[in-house]
């Protein structure tokens, strides 16, 4: 009962009734991200841009009418964990993000909640690659673990930096701490490393080696039909969740002129999401062994340095906290 009585959990949260709206908005954002990616892919390949824009819809229709592939000696139960894991994790991540001024769940440990969920992605992607009992997906799963070893620790320190500045792990407290200025301004390195982490747990762009072309689709290599739709859609959903989480953490939450708070959250999320999609197309996929060097020799030291700077500023009484 360390909670102050003036701030009961229920009053500060939107409550479960809003979860349907949350899922719908998240799905629409995921569709938009997939559409943007489709346009970028189509333009680069010289296909009609329209075919790229509608690709999320045509692909969904295609995968819904396609049959599932069943491989020999697969593990059907764990495969389903791999299939349903990503969309589920995305929704759980989004449930602590303040939409406007209040989140769905106003957890006192919102940052830790998010971190635990992004670690759960390890299990999900690994199982998606391991369960079909096939070599290429398995190699893809190994690759994911290698990348995760490189991005996870820097991601954890990047996540803890705003929490240190705000003196709280609760997302709404972190938002209020930014009323004087966005955290991204004085912790840009943590923000950048956090985005690398998002690319990592969404198996996106430079960190998409686990689903690489050299493995004929890697983790996705034996997945078809509705299963594939859930995994692909789940990737976009996790990307949306990762983008949305930057808003309370680094971009001042719902703070902004003119527009209502919920609109600002949406606009900022969409902007970060578009940036992630666009950047993901521009940077080549990195070899996991090379990225391990980056993770441990570059990302980890700079996040620690960032954390140190923020801790000193907060400790000496400056900053937002």
């Amino acid at each position, binding site marked *: 009962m360390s909670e102050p009585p003036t701030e009961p959990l229920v009053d500060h949260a939107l409550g479960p009734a809003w979860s349907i709206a949350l899922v719908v908005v998240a799905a629409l954002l995921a569709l938009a991200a997939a559409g943007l990616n489709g346009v970028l892919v189509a333009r680069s390949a010289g296909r009609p841009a329209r075919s790229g824009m509608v690709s999320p819809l045509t692909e969904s229709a295609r995968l819904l009418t396609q049959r599932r592939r069943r*491989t020999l000696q697969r593990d059907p139960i764990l495969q389903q964990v791999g299939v349903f894991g990503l969309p589920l994790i995305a929704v759980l991540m989004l449930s602590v993000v303040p939409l406007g001024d209040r989140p769905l769940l106003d957890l006192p440990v919102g940052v830790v909640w998010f971190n635990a969920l992004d670690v759960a992605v390890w299990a999900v992607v690994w199982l998606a690659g391991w369960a079909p009992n096939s070599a290429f997906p398995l190699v893809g799963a*190994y690759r994911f673990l290698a990348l995760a070893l490189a991005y996870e620790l820097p991601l954890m320190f990047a996540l803890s930096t705003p929490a240190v500045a705000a003196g709280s792990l609760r997302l709404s407290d972190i938002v209020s701490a930014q009323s004087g200025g966005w955290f991204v301004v004085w912790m840009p390195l943590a923000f950048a490393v956090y985005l690398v982490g998002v690319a990592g747990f969404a198996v996106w762009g430079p960190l998409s080696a686990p689903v*690489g072309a050299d493995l004929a689709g890697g983790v996705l*290599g034996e997945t078809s039909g509705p299963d594939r739709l859930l995994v692909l859609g789940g990737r976009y959903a996790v990307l949306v969740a990762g983008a949305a989480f930057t808003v309370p953490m680094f971009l001042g939450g719902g703070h902004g002129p003119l527009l209502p708070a919920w609109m600002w959250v949406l606009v900022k999320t969409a902007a970060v999401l578009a940036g992630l999609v666009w950047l993901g197309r521009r940077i080549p996929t990195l070899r996991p*062994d090379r990225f391990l060097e980056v993770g441990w020799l570059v990302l980890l030291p700079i996040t620690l340095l960032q954390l140190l700077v923020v801790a000193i500023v907060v400790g000496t009484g400056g900053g937002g906290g």
Partner: protein
Amino acid sequence: MALTAMMRSASLRSVHVLPVEIPGGWRVRVEVEQAVRRRGWRLASGPADADALVICGAPGSEWDELIDRVWGHLPGPRVRVTLANPAEVTGGLDRVVRELGDRDGQSVDAGQRRPDEDAAAFGSDRDTRGTSGMDMGDAPDGHDHHEESHHGDMDMGGDPDMGDIDMGGDPDMDMGDMDMDMAPSGIPLATGADDRDGLEMDELHVPLGPVLRHWPAGLVVRCVLHGDLVTGAEVELLPGSGAADAVDVAAERAAGWCDSAASTLRLAGAERPADRAVRLRDDLLDPTLADRPETATGLARLARDVRSSRVLRWSLGGLGVIATEVPGGPPTGDVHSRLCAQLDHALGALRGDPAPALDADGLRDALPGLMTGIDLAAARLMVASVWPPAVVAREAAGV
């Protein structure tokens, strides 16, 4: 019902095509890729991602069983067509749409598939040249010579070359009597389960090719994998019986090199430069565009960008180094320098430079040594960066 019909027609707008290039079918495959792009379709990453299996070229009887197996891996609704020459592409792809949209035909096909067809195709797949889907299950069908080599005494272990060529420099790579405490090339074994012979490792027998994207036509490399480390490789070339169209223009040779560079770039995960290389390839093959100065300058610009790309140099530099030069053999340097060389060869071909000397047999014999001791990603980049384009190889062979 209306919803089902709507979904069906929507799904026909992005058909995923898996092209299978038979030796001699290069132009057909390129033609198919162009048509796929014009129609707003996609190229499938593997059989599980494909709606249509498009055989490009004229396969001989040795391909029958192989193609049937890959066919069994398509989830369905599915269509297969064989296109022997470029003129058949438009009609063939129209047939794909017709048959994919044919509900009754597809239900008949689905009904005829045994429930375990995938599994059955899969179980016998281990010893074949397979597809992207290689199972690790243990379904015994041991009649194939390769099956006998499943565990312990590798037939390659008896090959005197194998232990010596390996790039890791470990003198004891001979798989026949691998000590179980040993870490090949200093990398610990990925899996440590007891094998049937009591060897504390799992050896995965994974065939690469010939039905594999970004992979030379007709090439089959049967790899032995520990985790994703290639510890053994055996090379076979499947023939094609298609009459190869004569190479008469320099532009086609240049296009061939562009295609090879595109594969290398694709495997390296560099999508945008790969797309540029593919579009240059298509421009070079279009007689109205090939001679335009823009094409040559575009090619030169791509070569310059790839050469100066820091990310590519960092990612591919020092990878798959070939130090010793063999006349006609694999090009020396690392993957990045060979990738640059592929684009330079394209420029050279366009200028009318003579094709580089090639010794196809020597290259085939060198391949197992080049691929052993490196990881799967590096091995694929190795193959893509040393293997000459089909048009150039054919020219060198004097066909």
